[in-house]
């Protein structure tokens, strides 16, 4: 995969580059908005790791121009934890995910993996642990054994697999599944989740309950 790291701090930039290189990605580096722009124009990228705190507000500019061109490149925004506005603004502008500084290496790698998998999935398949979801063939496999899922469970699983490691609130889930027919009650969601949990459990994938809030998909490979 081809990843661009836009970061003006040398220490962080080299760290990020070495992590990505170690994960067998092709890494491009840029320190300024102009440099980043040049790389984006020249090379076909899969992911941009973008420091929002660049001088001259360049981070937001890059993001804005990228989305203005309807570019499908995934963007992982790096922000400072205190800069809540940056985070919200970044997501509004079309960032796919954000990571607050300082972050651990594990956290970074997990986010990158998730984003790349997402960009990889178009028309193909989603995976987590021993679970494979073939979107085109409408088929779910645990290891190599196909399992049956209901349309609701399918939608639910798709929702989770698209955002591994992210917490989904019950409201969010209800909203996403709303199109199927009537509004789902929190209890109904619970029932669907618990059925799905039993079905995909053998794949080493677990749907954790966040008490009073929602769910989170965890898989052994992360």
């Amino acid at each position, binding site marked *: 995969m081809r990843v661009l790291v836009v970061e003006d701090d040398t220490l962080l930039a080299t760290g990020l580059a070495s992590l990505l290189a170690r994960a067998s990605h092709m890494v491009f580096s840029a320190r300024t908005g102009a440099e980043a722009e040049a790389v984006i124009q020249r090379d076909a990228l899969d992911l941009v790791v973008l420091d929002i705190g660049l001088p001259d507000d360049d981070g937001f500019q890059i993001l804005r121009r990228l989305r203005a061109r309807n570019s499908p490149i995934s963007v992982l925004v790096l922000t400072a934890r205190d800069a809540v506005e940056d985070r919200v603004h970044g997501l509004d502008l079309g960032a796919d995910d954000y990571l607050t500084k300082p972050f651990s290496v594990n956290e970074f790698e997990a986010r990158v993996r998730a984003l790349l998998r997402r960009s990889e999935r178009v028309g193909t398949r989603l995976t987590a642990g021993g679970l494979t979801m073939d979107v085109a063939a409408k088929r779910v496999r645990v290891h190599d054994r196909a399992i049956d899922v209901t349309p609701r469970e399918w939608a639910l699983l798709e929702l989770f697999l698209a955002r591994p490691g992210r917490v989904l609130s019950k409201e969010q889930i209800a909203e996403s599944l709303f199109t199927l027919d009537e509004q789902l009650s929190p209890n109904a969601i619970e029932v669907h989740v618990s059925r799905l949990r039993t079905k995909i459990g053998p794949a080493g994938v677990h749907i954790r309950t*966040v008490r009073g809030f929602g769910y989170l998909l965890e898989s052994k490979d992360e």
Partner: protein
Amino acid sequence: MSRGGARSPSIRQGLLLYLCGCLLLVIICVAAVTYAVALRAANDAYDRSLLDPAIDIADNVRIEAAGARVDLPQKALEALVYDQSDSIIYQVRMADGQLVSGVDDLPPPPAMAAGAHRFFDAMYRGQKIRVAGMRTANGTVVQVGETLHKRHQLVGEILAAELLTTLVIGAGSVALAWVGIARGLRPLEQLRAEILQRSIRDLRPLPAGGAPAEIAPVVRAFNELLAQLGAANTLQQRFMANAAHQLRTPLSGLQMHLEILLRRPLDDEVRAEIDLLHIATVRASRLATQLLALAKAETVPGSDRSLEIIDLRDLGGAAARDWVPRALQADIDLGFSLEPAVVLGDRTLLPEALNNLIDNALRYTPRGGSVTVRTGCIDAVPYLSVEDTGPGIPAPERDSVLERFYRVAGTPGEGSGLGLAIVKEVVDRHAGELEIDSVAVVCGTCVRISFPSQVSETS
């Protein structure tokens, strides 16, 4: 004006003291003038009655061959020189100085023309006396003197009446001045109250409208000082925020490289050293983040720029996304109970407070424990609370933990002691209330923030 302690000069006392001094001077002058006038009046009144016996005696002086004598019976003479309150003496001398009648030790009178009379003061046997003297056509000199008792009495009475009036007027003026000065100083009193009730962060200018001409310049000067203070404060906060921000980026880089290094096959001793370095780095960058948060929370607001209607429930939801992964890593059950709770708050600071509460709770709760974030309203009072099953905070230390860099003795972990100080700062900025409770929960700590009710504002 001053509240006990060191005595400071008071405008009211100063003015009154000045007024009293002036009054005293006036009273002294009035008394002196009154005394002179009264004495003159007394002399005018009594001199006449002193001259009458002198004339009577002079009329009755007979000059015979045997010598001169006063041709009056002893009784009549005594009646002439009798007075109820004063003792009267007289003396009759011939032109050649020979004593005819009366006492012989009266001092000689001043020079008088024949047929003329005079009133004058003299000393007689060590006593002051008033004398009426006259010289007849044939040169006989008659003097009648009397002590000054009734004159003094009259002067005293006039003086007393006059002084009493003056004193009543004086006391009246002082009382009126007392009230008047208090009235005049009322704007100053109001200004003082206004300044006293200010919170230390409130650097808004004092209202200058309506201040009297004498106080307006003080208000202006004070406002200028406030503005300068605000500017200095902002500069300091900005510096702190900048410094913390600048520190954080290299610390992030350092942390990342250490983590990359730790993935390599390393000698056990080296690994242990790098582990320590890593822990220190994480701690330092957390400290930088918290200093930044504190600087932000402390920043003097130019206006209510950042206050918006915020549902605490949404903050809880955002916190769930940020903190659940970390809680899972620490094997702590992070749960939520989120009910709508609308407050007027700062969109940057409130998450800061909540983040610090959750961070603290996760930090001090042992593996397998649970942390619960709650939002909602109790009796229309919106609240936000974070409850954990950690060791709890001993009651005597609950106030201290809100102080900066304070850490409960014997607590494990690498806390900076800034977390709750930040929370306190944010709560203060929202006029909220912070409660730390380790009793209501079975064990552990519950930190609850109550916010001013927004019911009236939103509906």
